[in-house]
Structures are given as C-alpha cells and as structure tokens.
C-alpha cells in the first residue's frame, strides 16, 4: 500500500490581478486558489493510493500563515493528512527556496514514501523547477511532464511527453513525478469532502523548527503588469459590423 506525497501551492488567482497605476500589479481584489496544475498532482496521488489498495496521501505545502485555507482545500480533494510549513517570511519564495524547504520537511518528517507527485508548474510563477529540484535534493529519480502513470512492484512506469513524441520510462521507487494537466480530471470537492477535510490531521511546521538557511539565488528586480491591451473596438453582428470587420482585415494589409 503506497505512501504518496503530494506537493501543492496556494496561489493568487491571476484572473483578479489588475493593472495598476504606472504598470504596477494591483492585488487589491485578488482571490486565492490551489494552483491548477497542483490539483492534477493531488488527484493523481489519490488515484494511485486507491489503485494500490489503500495507503495514504500526505500533502505538503509551504506558505505564509494565510495559506491555511489552502491546506483545508487540499485535504478536501482526497488527501489523508497535510504538513503545513508556514512562516510570514515564506512569501514570494524562489523555486530554489521552496524546493529546499520541502526537501528538509520530507527528509525529516516523512521517513518512508514511495512517490512524490508535483504539478508541472505553479499557477503563479510557472517556473517548473520545484519538482525536479526537490528530486535532486532528496537524491531520488525524477520523471517530469507525465501524462500517464502506473506503479507496480516497487517501480513506476510513466509516459513522459516530450517535443518529439512520448517516452515511456521506468524508474525504481521512491521517485518523483511532475504531472501534466491531461493525466486526470481533478475532482470538485463536495460539501461532505469539505466537512471531512476539517477533521483530517494537519501538522504545522514553523520556520524555527527547520535548520536550513533557505537563501535565494536570484533577485526579483521588478514585477510589472504586462500590457496585452489593444484598442478593443466592438462591432455588432449585423451587416454593417461584418462589412467593417472585413474592411479592417483588408486594411491591415494582411489579406487582399
């Protein structure tokens, strides 16, 4: 019966980010969510547990104390328990820092596991680094961009999607995978799932319970709104609108 670790991140829902004065990012009306790709990681961990006839899924997340909502959200998606590594300074961490913190928590507090599942990237930075970095720090095999996964006899078999096709790979467990969105369809938690989530164990790990220094390697010099806005002329679907649309296409010089 497998023990599976699922890593996830509570992130800003980018839909609510506005472009503020002078190109600054306006976070004043944002909401938060579990990263889209991390939902696939949690779902896959839960499915592999169930396919393995039991076992457990342990969620691990790193964030500020405000991310507690995300821990409950994660637990409502089928995980059995969660480690919440929390500190006010764990804001805007670099992927290298997140991976180092996850590595220390997993090494020191989860003595035995078969698989670690991560999303292919976070919904906010989408740097796609934490999974493979974590595998290296733990010294375990790593298979990224997995679209199909099975576990048998202490080994995993995975379909990894690469530019020129698919590589079917095998690796001994414990190992780490990062999963693509089409590996599964994440469940939508119901009322019962949410109620049950409140009863599942959460182990909070504080900054001073960890020994690492977790220093960053790069400096974010600026984070500014990108401008995708255009003139945005709206036309009606009547004959005048169609005529103007086609006329504009012709004027663009792209078509004759």
């Amino acid at each position, binding site marked *: 019966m497998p023990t599976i670790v699922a890593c996830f991140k509570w992130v800003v829902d980018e839909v609510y980010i506005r472009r503020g004065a002078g190109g600054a990012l306006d976070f004043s009306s944002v909401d938060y969510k579990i990263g889209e790709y991390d939902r696939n990681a949690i779902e896959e961990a839960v499915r592999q547990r169930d396919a393995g006839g039991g076992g457990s899924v342990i969620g691990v997340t790193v964030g500020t104390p405000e991310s507690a909502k995300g821990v409950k959200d994660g637990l409502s998606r089928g995980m059995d328990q969660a480690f919440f590594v929390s500190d006010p300074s764990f804001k805007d961490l670099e992927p*290298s820092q997140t991976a180092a913190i996850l590595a220390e928590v997993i090494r020191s507090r989860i003595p035995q596991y078969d698989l670690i599942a991560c999303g292919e990237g976070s919904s906010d930075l989408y740097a*796609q680094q934490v999974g493979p970095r974590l595998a290296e720090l733990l010294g375990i095999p790593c298979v*990224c961009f997995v679209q199909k996964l099975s576990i048998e006899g202490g080994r995993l078999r995975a379909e990894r999607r690469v530019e020129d096709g698919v*590589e079917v790979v095998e690796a001994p467990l414990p190992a780490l995978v990062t999963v693509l969105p089409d590996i599964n369809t994440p469940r939508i938690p119901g009322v019962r799932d949410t109620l049950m989530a409140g009863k599942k164990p959460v182990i909070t790990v504080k900054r001073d319970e960890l020994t690492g220094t977790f220093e960053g*390697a*790069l400096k*974010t010099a600026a984070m500014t709104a990108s401008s995708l806005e255009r*003139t945005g002329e709206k036309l009606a679907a009547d004959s005048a609108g*169609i005529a103007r649309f086609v006329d504009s296409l012709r004027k663009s010089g792209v078509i004759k």
Partner: protein
Amino acid sequence: MAGIWIVAETREQAFELLGAGRLLAPEMETTVTAVVAKGSASPQECIARGADEVLLLAELAPGEPFGAQLPVIEQEARASSPHAILFSATARGKETAARLSARLAAGLCSACTALAFDKATGSIVMERLAYGGAAIQKLAASAAPVVITIPPRSFEPAEAMDGRQGKTRELPAPPPSAVKIVERKPKEKVSKDITEARVIVCAGRGFDKKEDIALARRLADALGGELGATRPLTEELHWLPEDLCIGLSGVQVKPELYVGLGVSGQVQHMTGVRGAKVVCSVNRDENAPIFALSDFGIVGDLYEVVPKILEKLET
C-alpha cells in the same frame, strides 16, 4: 575558465542558444562554450557561430534518457565555473536545467525572454512572464553560475562567421541512469508548425462540437492561414493536436493576423499571441476579456458571423 555555456540537444537549439550567449559574452568579456549532443550541431558549426570551445556529449546507450548526461555536465561545470548556463526550455531541457541548478545550488531563470549584462552592477538581468502572462518578472543574478532556459525561437540564431577558431573535447560517457526509456512513441502525425504562420485562425471553447471546427478551418483557408487552438480544445477535448495549442504552455506565435473564434481571452492564451500585429475576435459574450485584448471584434454567435465573414470575403 569561466564563460557562457550553452547546452543543446539539437542543431537548431545550439544555433539559437549561441545567438543568446553572444548577447552576453562580449559584454562580459568572456568566452562561449557549447556543450552539444553528438549528431546535433558539429563542432565546426558551433565554432563558426561563436563558440570558443565545444564539449561533445558522448552518445547515450539505448534506453538512456537525455537526463543521464547530468553528472557529466555537472562535473564539467564544477571544474570550469561558468557565469551562465543556457538550455532550451523544452521538456528535456527544462528538467535537466532544474536538476543541474539544484546540484550546483544555482539560481534558474525559467523561460527567459530577454537577457542582458548590466555592467554597472555586474549582474545578468533577465525577463520572464509570471501570473499566466499578466506580469513580467525581471530577475537579476549576481552570483555565478546562473542557469537560464530559453523558449525555442525566442532569440535570433547565431550567424556563421569566417575565420573563427576553437577547441573541441569529447566528454566521457555518463554512468547509467535510474530512469530508463523502455519505449519511444514518435509523434504519429506532425502537424503544421504554426509559429511561422502569417495568419492564424484560432478555435476556442465557443465551438460546440469537433465537426464544427471545419468552420474555423474554412476561414483559415479563405485568409490563407493556419488553424490554431486554445488549451481546452487540445488538452481536455483532444479535438485538435497539441502542437496547435497557443499560449503559455503551448506555442508562442507572432502572425500578422490572429482571429480568435469563440476564444474567451484568458491571459494564459493571449500571452501566446502578444507578438501578433493585428488581433481580432468573434465572441457572443460581449464581456469576454478577449475584446479588450483585440484590435477589433464582433460581438455575436460565431456560427452566424463566420459564414457571413466568409461570404463578404468572397465579394
């Protein structure tokens, strides 16, 4: 020796990364080293395009993944301490770059779209997209090495120059990897490369069923363009091949004209068409975000509007 390193699996990658590396090397008054897979770019080609040194990766045994080269690359990097190591942001490149960064305790700028050396601060300054493309993150690296991945076709490939000289060295074969490839499934049908298309008609979730995509194809044909798609159509519904998926997790395109049909305009998708000269759209929801991100668009049902556009185009 320090320097700028590029690690390439294919010839195309090598030329583009050499182009990017040459943006840094002269400013930093340093050399360029090309670490390339055998059978990709030849040492002569790399040297002509700016490499001062070529390190040839040994041929992999059958079943060994590209990541197996990691210990060899790590050892060489430790020995020569480069300032920067550039990879292509392909599946294998991204994974290998992240694993190498962890081993070297290095910073990694993923999917870098602009880079320069800032003489005043002595740091490499890089740009990338964040928050699904809603933001531009500017990163600075002052400590060496910094690892950088570059999305394919982001930089101009290096041109060959006459009379250049350089050294070539063969690297040892790596130890066997824990991960083994047991089967390779090449892409059944390679769909059209839409990154170079002049006109792209993109189908979005506004289409009710797979057969209806024919309407988008008809418009693409009428405009002399190619068909593209949003992520739900390729990843969830599998109506179109994944190569046609435009956006942050798909391809970045820069056509003269982009026409979004039934595309809502999520930032993750629209960031993939930021290089388009003209963006227009048809969507029945007048509040769809795509209108603000278009030059012009029709508020209406694509099933009624597109046939009318086709008719008008014929007159």
